[in-house]
């Protein structure tokens, strides 16, 4: 399987550097998914995301850390193209989301894994149906073929046997999250944006899901944007991270450096709060 976006497709982007003394070690140019100076407000309300720039190079894992009200979930919706920035642009494979129509193959390049594994799935569809529908709708596969692909994909995320014929109400949270990941993978994305993918799960199940996400990245080179309030999870999965507060990026850099020697007092206080 080939990713929809290859390196050749990438267009060099040179976003304007917003003013301020923020240390930006994450290159803001070049990447499968690039946000340049993005600001977003709901309607005429105050901006909930302010001047955020970030780039996801192919196969990279980036963490977005913040507490409630930091704008991190809104940023996730912006990155996947569910919301349109008020100012600034988000490009995928060099093209802004606004130019990517519903049936454009590029639409599939960025997929999402949601926080609540139950509401992320259609309650009336079985695991197999949820995943096989992606093959039917996105690559026009025939029913039997799509079903076969879906079985393989579910097996890859660790679901086999009776579990694949169950509906969300009959599955555990961990199983639902695996189906959600399989559905995202079926679209053959270049980047997966995971919004708090394990915060609703038990610790023992969380480890399974984190390992699955880590493997997908290593084995298939899928980029990962991990949104989380949990610094432990971010430190486990990502190479670089940004810390957000009140819609703004307060610090960004390599995850290890950021967690070991934070420059911003807010990052420091977050680290000190880890129990």
């Amino acid at each position, binding site marked *: 399987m080939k990713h929809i976006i290859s390196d050749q497709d990438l267009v060099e982007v040179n976003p304007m550097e917003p003013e301020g003394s923020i240390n930006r070690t994450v290159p803001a140019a070049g990447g499968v998914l690039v946000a340049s100076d993005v600001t977003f407000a709901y309607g005429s309300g105050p901006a909930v995301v302010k001047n955020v720039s970030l780039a996801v190079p192919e196969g990279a894992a980036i963490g977005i850390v913040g507490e409630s009200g930091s704008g991190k979930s809104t940023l996730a919706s912006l990155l996947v193209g569910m919301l349109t920035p008020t100012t600034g642009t988000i490009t995928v494979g060099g093209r802004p989301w606004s130019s990517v129509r519903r049936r454009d193959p590029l639409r599939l390049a960025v997929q999402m894994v949601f926080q609540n594994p139950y509401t992320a799935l259609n309650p009336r569809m079985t695991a197999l149906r949820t995943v096989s529908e992606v093959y039917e709708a996105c690559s026009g596969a025939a029913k039997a073929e799509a079903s076969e692909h879906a079985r393989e994909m579910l097996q890859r995320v660790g679901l086999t046997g009776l579990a694949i014929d169950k509906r969300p109400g009959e599955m555990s949270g961990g199983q639902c999250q695996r189906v959600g990941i399989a559905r995202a993978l079926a679209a053959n994305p270049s980047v997966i944006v995971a919004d708090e993918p394990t915060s609703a799960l*038990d610790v023992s199940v969380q*480890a*399974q899901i984190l390992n699955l996400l880590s493997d997908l990245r290593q084995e298939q080179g899928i980029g990962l944007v991990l949104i989380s309030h949990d610094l432990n999870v971010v430190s486990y999965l990502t190479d670089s991270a940004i810390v957000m507060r009140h819609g703004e990026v307060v610090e960004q850099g390599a995850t290890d450096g950021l967690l*070991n020697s934070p420059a911003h007092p807010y990052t420091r206080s977050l680290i000190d*709060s880890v129990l």
Partner: protein
Amino acid sequence: MTQTLLLQASNVAIEIDGRQLVSSVDLAVNKGSAVGIVGETGSGKSLTCRAIAGSLPAIGGSITHGTLTLDGRDLTKPKAYADLYGRTVSLVPQNSLSALNPLMRIGAHLIETIKALDADDGLGPKNRAAQLLERVGLRDPERILRQYPHQLSGGMRQRVMIALAIAGRPKLLIADEPTTALDVSVQKEIVELLGQLTREEDMAMILVSHDLGVVSAATETVAVMYSGMVVEHGPTETILQHPRHPYTKALLEARPTIGRTGRLVGIPGAPASPDAWPSGCRFAPRCKYAQPACNEAVPTLEATDSGQFVACRRVHEIGALESAGAA
């Protein structure tokens, strides 16, 4: 050290509508001590809290087996709770952020509780309410008394819930996942507040969480629950440093922590539903040390040389295996 026992549970089983959801809980809480209960979804930790707080009948549940004594009273008897709640035991519930009535001022909540418990300490309900808010670390209590719940942040509302819970000077405070819905930076403050109140108010506490980190920050002893049973209990430090039950070990290995390198080891599979509990050790199907004999009988808690009680028939062999592996 003379410590008097406040709560003792032994072999408690709880059923709801004929389904046994908790099958064996052993727990002891001394006066003024802080005890943690750690467990995952479906482990029965919240039901255990409800049993102790006397709110099982409200959900159609009952204690069907074992003994549960709180401050000298047998809680398995009907009507045992007549005047216990609020004064002897009180609960900070799991979903406490939505537990305040949005149409009532904070003062009205507190005054109502203080009057109901007749616990104004001779100060008058209003002054006592302000004193309680100060006690839980809220500045400017006079102003907060006049405010509505939505005007307060999540952390402040949780502090109000704690103030309500300690209004009657209970001997035992149960905090059921008190930090789950809160931001990281607030979680720590709340856990520290609970620890501080326990020490200063001569009150015992049961702190329930799925997170070993939360429990370790404020408790002296901890009980680990799995599928309706306590599988390990003992001093918190000991259990965190040297867990003996395979489940506790696995739980600690499954936690990502900053600075830790190498792959996480998840626990394969998921806990069985109460209708399909294995006949032997509940954890055996997911345990890497399991042997066929583990499926024969449900293991009971036994003392170990390291100071904790463990319900695992192979606990000594596993210890030997590991020290051999380390050497």
